Every structure is written in structure tokens, then in C-alpha cells.
């Protein structure tokens, strides 16, 4: 399993701040998105605005993910 944390508008759309996905057959971040969008269809329209982090650092689609990793779904940041 991997833990997926959602923040801001993404948590709002998904209706949850945390979920777990079975990713035994997944090796990259890009492969996680279809699983997440299937579970939380309201997230799908946000796809192009989202960034992702793996274990606390910004990551791209071809970056690897492994069981036990923490993935964060990050809408456009708006601090300050």
C-alpha cells in the first residue's frame, strides 16, 4: 500500500485528506494517478493544476514509487 495525502482544494474535492492505494503493480508516480482518479472522480478535473510529492519532495510522473511511500497531492500553492 501507499499512503496518499490530499491538501487544500484536492482534499475538498476528494472529500478526504488521506487514503491508501494498493500499488503492488505500480512502479512510477504516473501510474498512481488513474487509481486515485478512479477512487475520487471529483479530483479528475483538477489533474492539470496538481503537483505531487513523494516522501516529502516534489516528484514527476516518471519518478519511482514503492510500497510504503507517502504521496502528497498538491494543488497550486497559495501561501503568504
Amino acid at each position: 500500500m501507499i499512503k496518499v495525502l490530499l491538501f487544500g482544494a484536492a482534499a475538498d474535492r476528494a472529500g478526504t485528506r488521506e487514503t491508501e492505494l494498493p500499488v503492488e503493480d505500480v512502479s512510477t508516480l504516473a501510474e498512481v494517478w488513474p487509481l486515485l482518479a478512479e477512487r475520487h472522480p471529483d479530483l479528475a478535473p483538477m489533474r492539470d493544476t496538481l503537483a505531487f510529492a513523494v516522501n516529502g519532495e516534489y516528484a514527476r510522473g516518471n519518478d519511482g514509487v514503492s510500497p510504503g511511500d507517502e504521496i502528497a497531492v498538491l494543488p497550486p500553492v497559495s501561501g503568504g
Partner: protein
Amino acid sequence: MFAIVEESLDVGALIQAAQRPDCGAIATFVGTTRIDESEGAAVEYLEYEAYRPMADRKLEEIGAEIEGRWDVRRVSIVHRLGRVDPGEASVVIVVAAARRGPAFEASRYAIERIKEVVPIWKREVWSDGYVWVGSQVGTRDQVSGNR
């Protein structure tokens, strides 16, 4: 000093902590909650959340970027989370340097980088609903997708 806190920010204390005999300038930026108005409604307060500890680490990285680019002697960035009422500070940046140029430039750089890379989000709570800033997701009629 880099921190993310839940309580109100003491701007004076942060400036005092930056005063040093080798510095001739302290530049301070304070971001505060502004009451915007539109279509008969108004912002009542802002609410911030963060992905920690990534956000803490990103603040420290901004500090390291600044020290690599400018001759500054002390950089403090403190961001508040939770509800921030109108006029109250959500972020305070204090840069002490020998001369004013680097202090001004570095403090500007810090706030712009915060808005680019630090995983912190704000929700505007209006009298008629809320909006996640940057995502335009929320409950106000003006939010795209709710029309």
C-alpha cells in the same frame, strides 16, 4: 529562523531578534489578511494549511537560496496556519544585512518563492461561501464549476 506556527505572529520580536551590530539594514515583509469585496460579499478571514514537514523544509531551502545569492547576515521566515483575521499577519519575513540593497532584494525574493514552492494553501472564507485560492474550488457562486 524558519518556523510554521499556529499562533499569532509577533512582528516586533522577530525584528528585534534580527538586530545585529554588523548590520545596517533590516528589511521586513508582513503579509496580512485583506478584506476583498465582490458582488455584495466580503472576505471574513483566511484559513491556512500546510503539508508538513515538507513546508518547513522548503522555508529552510529558501533561506539557503538567499544566503547563496546575497550577502545577508540573518534571515527569518515565519508562516502562520489556521484562521487569520483581517489585518493580522500570516507571514513575516525579516532579513538583516550590512546594507539595504541585499536586505530589500532578499526579502522580496523570499515572499515570491514562498508563493511558488512552499506547500501552504489558503482558503478565503467569504460572507457567502469559501474559495481555495489558486484552485478556484469552493462554495461561492463565483467559483468556476459552480456556475
